[in-house]
């Protein structure tokens, strides 16, 4: 077993194991800090798909921004920590565990079956890419290429998403302001 495969399996088990712990822990603060580990392990997995810039962006945006926001929201709604264990029944969401687990396992089974079925025939665009040798290699300068693509081929989605992000941030700060009229 070579080092690359070993590291991939290490990152994969780290990601899946800590994700399982995140959803099974009762203490939300601990779960959020474990979510940190999941995001780092996922960034490591992106590196194995030769997407270095996506991995760095994942660390900067998720760990630096999203996780801090989640921790803030958790600490501002801290009263929930006390009555977290209370039982509620009868609703669409928050099904009991014995109902959710078979559902999730069935879904996982369907996905694995789909992957196995899909493996029988590789898509045409992938085989042509392998034949023409246009597969991303580890020696390529990805960030250079991504910058050129963002400013030429994908410039319209890039501008649209920047305006969308500004709208979302203005909306979020508008929603969370204090109401002074009342």
């Amino acid at each position: 077993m070579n080092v690359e495969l070993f590291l991939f399996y290490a990152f994969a088990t780290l990601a899946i194991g800590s994700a399982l712990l995140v959803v099974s822990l009762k203490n939300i603060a601990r779960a959020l800090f474990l979510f940190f580990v999941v995001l780092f392990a996922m960034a490591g997995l992106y590196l194995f798909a030769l997407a270095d810039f996506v991995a760095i962006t994942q660390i900067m945006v998720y760990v630096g921004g999203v996780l801090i926001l989640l921790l803030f929201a958790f600490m501002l709604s801290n009263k929930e920590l006390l009555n977290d264990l209370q039982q509620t029944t009868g609703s669409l969401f928050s099904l009991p565990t014995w109902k959710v687990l078979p559902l999730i396992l069935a879904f996982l089974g369907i996905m694995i079956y789909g992957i196995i079925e899909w493996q029988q025939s590789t898509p045409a665009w992938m085989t042509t890419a392998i034949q023409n040798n246009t597969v991303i290699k580890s020696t390529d300068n990805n960030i250079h290429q991504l910058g050129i693509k963002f400013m030429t081929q994908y410039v319209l989605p890039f501008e649209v998403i920047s305006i969308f992000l500004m709208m979302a941030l203005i909306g979020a700060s508008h929603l969370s302001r204090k109401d002074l009229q009342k």
Partner: protein
Amino acid sequence: MITLTHFLVVSACIFCIGLYAVLAKKNAIMILVGIELMINAAILNFVAFGKYDKINYGGQIFALFAIVLAAAAVAVGLAIILNVYRYYKTVNPDQIRELKD
């Protein structure tokens, strides 16, 4: 040699864990964490397939777009959760029963 199947299986597992969090959790913040896990699984798929697309770099670029969209969704979602908490004094979606003022 790491094949595409490795990535697909890992991302299927992460997606199902996220789905479990969305379905089973009683706290709105943990539901948001579950949605983030599902988005991360989708990004892993994008990146794994994007390895075979050197001409357009479609997978990596849409992975970056998905990260930005997820960040915006979390910002707006947390603002809504905090407002709901201020109004109802709970973040349990079961106990939030009315939309009117």
